[in-house]
């Protein structure tokens, strides 16, 4: 039985947590002042890969496209997952890529990894760009079955198949949990609600063991890290960076304040008398419903 081989694509994103995030006076993100971290959805994808290691001793390779400073984020990912290999795809020619051109880089990089991948994981979407397109587009370019919104998965290493549960929200109708079986390889975009469960004693022991190993490895993470440029991953220059991007950002503007839809009555928050009147009004609104 071949060992399970998994890869994770991760993204460095602004840290939106209070105290780290900085907003401009107009309410927009101040990127210069905001720290960058491993994106929260990426972190969930890393957790999902770690689950494959604990259950099946999977080999984990983590990759990202980004500037040289992104290596500290890969170190953090290794600490979380005891990753065996780290890849940073870094080249000035990658700059300005839209999702299609980014997916091309990630595809080229993954094809260059040691051995064939059984599963590639990505996060649900980035907290800053929020398109959620890079994962599925990378999957398509790799020719892998794409499974999105995955909340749970189990691999059968013998039959080389996987069973996943997906959470599909059908707005205005209902939500569905769908169980899907697919032959490996597959590409999984992990849902934000994913939580790995380690039930058995042997799994918990494996958890301890790998965590210990992860701490050692991540102290020395550069030994596991390869920084590769466009030529080294043999990415087609026509399909990456600005040249490979069908879309451009034409303009960015402040969303104009719409016409006031309601004429608000303004009340001083310390005026108890007024608030009493508003509460009465609210109660009146609520009671008309009962009469209807």
């Amino acid at each position, binding site marked *: 039985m071949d060992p399970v081989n998994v890869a994770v694509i991760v993204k460095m994103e602004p840290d*939106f*947590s*209070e105290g780290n995030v900085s907003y401009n006076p*107009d309410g*927009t993100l101040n990127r210069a002042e905001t720290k960058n971290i491993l994106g*929260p959805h990426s972190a969930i994808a890393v957790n999902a890969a770690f689950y494959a290691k604990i259950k099946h001793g999977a080999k984990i390779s983590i990759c990202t496209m980004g500037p040289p400073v992104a290596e500290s984020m890969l170190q953090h990912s290794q600490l979380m997952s005891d990753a065996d290999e780290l890849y940073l795809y870094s080249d000035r020619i990658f700059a300005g890529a*839209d999702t*299609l051109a980014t*997916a091309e880089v990630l595809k080229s990089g993954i094809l260059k990894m040691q051995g064939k991948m059984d599963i590639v994981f990505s996060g649900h979407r980035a907290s*800053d760009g*929020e*398109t*959620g397109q890079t994962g*599925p*587009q990378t999957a*398509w*370019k790799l020719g892998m*079955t794409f*499974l*999105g919104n995955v909340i749970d998965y189990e691999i059968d290493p013998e039959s080389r198949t996987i069973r996943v549960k997906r959470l*599909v*929200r*059908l*707005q*205005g*109708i*209902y*939500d*569905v949990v*769908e*169980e*899907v079986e*697919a*032959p490996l390889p597959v590409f999984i975009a992990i849902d*934000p609600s994913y939580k790995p469960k380690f039930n058995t004693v042997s799994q918990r022991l494996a958890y301890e063991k790998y965590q210990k190993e992860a701490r050692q490895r991540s102290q020395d993470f550069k030994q596991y890290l390869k920084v590769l440029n466009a030529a080294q991953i043999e990415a087609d220059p026509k399909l990456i960076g600005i*040249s490979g991007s069908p*879309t*451009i*950002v*034409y*303009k*960015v*503007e*402040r*969303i104009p304040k719409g016409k*006031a*839809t*309601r004429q608000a*009555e303004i*009340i001083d*928050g*310390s005026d108890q008398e007024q*608030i*009493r009147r508003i*509460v009465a009004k*609210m109660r009146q*609104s*609520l009671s*008309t*419903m009962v009469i209807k």
Partner: protein
Amino acid sequence: MTEGDYRHVYIIVEHEEGKLLQVSLEMIGEARRMLDDFNKRYSSKEKVVAVLLGYNIKDISRVLIQHGADAVICSDNPELRYVRNTIYTKTIFQIATDREIAAKIEPEYAIQFKRPRYMFFAADSIGRHLSSTVLAHLESGLASDINKLVVGDLQITHQNKTGGKPMTYEKTLEMYRPDFSGFLWTTILCLDNKNPAMQKDYHPQSCSIIPGVFDIIKPDPSRNGITIEYVPKFDAQDLRVRIIDRKIIKSEIDFDSHKTIVSFGRGIKDSPEQNIKMIEELASELDAQVGITLPLSKKPFSVSQAVDSTYLIPDRVIGTSGRKVSPKVYIAVGISGAMQHISGMRDSEFIVAINPDEDAPIKDECDVFIKGRMEDVVPILIEEIRKQKQVVQA
């Protein structure tokens, strides 16, 4: 690009077992309005084309036509009963590049037809992923989460697209996308590379559209349209991906059965834990459900595990990235009023906002604006509600 290679708007329709998702009709409505204007301006006769995949769905065609579609391309097949990404992507690709279908839609435009000019998907669990893979397959551009569309002839100077020279791009779709803060609008264009050094066409110009944004056209039973059946070609390998089970679940957060909703935003920031507890108390006095704004679901505050997992969760988000609500009473606590949030609650009957900043956009969207810090105002509010309840009971 040669004028005439790209024609029509193709809309990927979403439904569940034949029940249409509202967003499908919203997309058709917007495409109808857009193309009516387009055809007048450019003296052309391009069509609104609905692409419908599923099983036992033929009845829906009529509904789509009544709501503004000129043509419906329908693939009715048991293998397409539920969405499986690979076979759906390939079927849509086949349909989008099929000249015989194009000939049935508008014979005059069929000879040159290569692909649709524009393509719309829904920005939801299904359309978000499907649009990504379809456009990866078509090797063209995609903008996500759009809430405004404009067609224009644009003068573009771009190092790469035009080789630094000004060039005109006709019939270009300006796709407006609100960013995560809700305060910025980014306009995305999908442009052919006209730079002679690296010519390449990028069509269709595509986007995913936020549900609930565009208006549905009033159905007109007398509207005419054609339905074209398409028999998809499947690869046997792709059918090995099987859906074994489907369970319908209800969201844990029920907004619809509450007459009052109390929502909070970043205004809780000075003491998040205590403030959320206070909002919880207010909500319980009013038998209200609790909602949050999108930024809060990104967990920007350190609070106890219990508060975090109860309140700072995507299921509670009200707005374009979450739920649309319309309760009798809506209380917005510490919410500035980003457009994304407003569009999720503006249909509420009576809206009260509590905010220290009189310039906050929420002021223009509420009936009563209580100016003050939530820490000061909410306790008074709770006290008054309790008093008035006692009066009634006495």
